[in-house]
């Protein structure tokens, strides 16, 4: 089964579990506070995932190390390539 298929199956499982609990007939409902916490659960999971993504992006932005030597080496390569092309007649 493809990855998409697996994700869709997982989502369908969780979705039907949530729907079964949320749309229960009045006799079989969960106790009130549990039900109140359960109903917004899909939106909550979406917001939680959004927060996690934002935090990951921010953390990796803050901890990304500059590579001084690689930058210097790259500038050197650019300079050499420019000189070489100029020598061969290409006007930059």
């Amino acid at each position, binding site marked *: 089964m493809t990855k998409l298929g697996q994700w869709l199956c997982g989502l369908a499982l969780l979705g039907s579990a949530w729907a079964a609990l949320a749309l229960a007939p009045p006799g079989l409902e969960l106790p009130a*506070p549990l039900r109140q916490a359960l109903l*917004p*659960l899909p939106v*909550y999971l979406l917001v939680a995932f959004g927060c996690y993504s934002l*935090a990951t992006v921010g*953390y990796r932005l*803050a*901890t990304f190390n*500059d590579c001084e030597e690689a930058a210097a080496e790259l500038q050197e390569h650019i300079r050499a390539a420019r000189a070489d092309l100029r020598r061969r007649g290409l006007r930059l």
Partner: protein
Amino acid sequence: MATATDQLVGFGLVAFSLILFVYYTLWIIVLPFIDNNHGIHQYFLPREYAVIIPVVAGLLLVLFIGVFIVIVMWKSRKAAKKSD
């Protein structure tokens, strides 16, 4: 080491999303189990807003992305037409 601005923005994002996550978790998951006379309820809007605000924010996000794409495509089409 990333530059100072990078670190500031990065850790700012982490702090912001942490605060948002804690507030939203309290609102959705913890508050239903706390008595209605407890003082903590005054710091939270009525429960409907816990669903309305993220949905509206999501729609606004999709709107902005769509508008941005339209503007970029428009500009690139005008540039292509001008060079013809």
